[in-house]
């Protein structure tokens, strides 16, 4: 290898070493900035001397750019030192080690009490209005079906708004209560079969348009304990058992019923 080649190799090795050294300093400054450890744990004077010697010994453009970046990172650590000193000088400062010891020595209740003394929670309201519910429902019903033909899909996507929705008035408590009472009376007057009143027959009694509404009101009646709903395990048939008086249930359970058009 000739002299020029050897020189080039030495030069490139010097550049690589300088870059590695600068990257190490940048990494060190970053870790101080991110982790919040004591910024005085690094010797700034020493870092600047290193930086100077690297800059004086290299005319490589990459090294010079990296050197400038390192200088910027060191200046950030100096800014952190400034803030650190300011915090220490203020009356807010308590040494981190002392705080850790205090936290470890204190019992849970005392720690919670310390926070309670300084805690003034935000007061704000979050609410869903009736108008928002109606808007949400209208939006939902206006959505096109996702994939597949509309005819293959059941219930809501094929129904009009009027068909699918339970009348808005029914959402009002008083009217609902009245409808529950009426349905209870109707159920008591219903001819009881061996197993009770057939669920599907009962809800479809007033036609297709009222089916969903009757099922909705009936669900309140059952939840309140004025009726029971039993599912035949083999046939899957649903039977309503009406009660004159409200009954207490020891182990209440939920039954999900899917209502389809024409069922």
């Amino acid at each position: 290898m000739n002299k020029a080649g050897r020189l080039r190799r030495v030069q490139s090795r010097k550049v690589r070493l300088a870059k590695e050294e600068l990257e190490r300093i940048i990494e060190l400054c970053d870790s101080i900035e991110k982790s919040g450890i004591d910024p005085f744990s690094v010797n700034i004077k020493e870092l600047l001397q290193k930086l100077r010697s690297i800059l004086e010994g290299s005319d490589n453009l990459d090294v010079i750019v990296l050197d400038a970046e390192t200088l910027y990172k060191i200046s950030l650590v100096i800014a952190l030192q400034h803030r650190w000193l300011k915090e220490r000088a203020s009356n807010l400062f308590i040494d981190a080690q002392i705080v850790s010891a205090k936290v470890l020595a204190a019992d849970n209740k005392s720690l919670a009490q310390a926070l309670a003394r300084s805690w003034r929670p935000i007061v704000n309201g979050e609410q869903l209005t009736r108008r928002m519910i109606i808007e949400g429902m209208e939006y939902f019903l206006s959505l096109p079906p996702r994939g597949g033909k509309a005819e293959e899909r059941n219930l809501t996507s094929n129904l009009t708004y009027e068909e699918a929705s339970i009348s808005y008035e029914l959402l009002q408590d008083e009217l609902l209560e009245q409808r529950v009472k009426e349905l209870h009376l109707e159920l008591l007057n219903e001819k009881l079969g061996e197993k009770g009143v057939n669920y599907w027959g009962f809800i479809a009694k007033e036609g297709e348009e009222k089916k969903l509404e009757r099922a909705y009101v009936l669900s309140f009646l059952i939840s309140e304990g004025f009726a029971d709903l039993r599912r035949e395990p083999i046939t899957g048939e649903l039977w309503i058992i009406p009660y004159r008086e409200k009954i207490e249930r020891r182990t209440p359970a939920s039954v999900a019923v899917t209502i389809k058009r024409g069922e």
Partner: protein
Amino acid sequence: MSAEHDAEQKAGRKLAVAVAMLLFTSHRLPGVRGYELRRRLGKNYLKIIDMLNRRLNPIGLRVKIVFEGRGDKEHGQEDFDKARFFITLNEPLTLSDIVAAGWRIDEVAILSATLALLYPRGGRATYGEVMELLEAKFPKWRVESALEKFIRRGYLYKDEDNILHIGWRTYAEIDQRELAKAITELHQQKSYKRS
């Protein structure tokens, strides 16, 4: 007389708008920015806020302003425009109030300890460092679930480098000075009892 009455009515209306803006969440986070208040209430919105504050104080509430730069410097108009305005309680809650509101004492203790550890470290520390300290006192699963909850609620914030920071809600709700004082006094009481 009529002009005076009009001005009074106008101020009353603005007050109502300010209350609605501050109390009801219209964004993902509670509270509103100063520039939003300025847009709805006009350039003298700080006077309306001041008036609102005087009305809220007797019922135990106050308007809390959280500035973007956390320093103690004098704040200019621009700082107020960028600041976030909240309504908070005026007096701290008792521990039994906090428990009645659904918080567990050990969860509150974990938040107290975490903030006490973060404040002297310039408001941030590595998640691992905080976990290590808290694990000496609480079960690991409890610490993890509590920190997760406080991050979700905005009391703490964890960045992509796994550094835990003080969250926006802490700046709005917790009085740093008071907490530091409470932690110090707590220790003094303990030492006194021992001696």
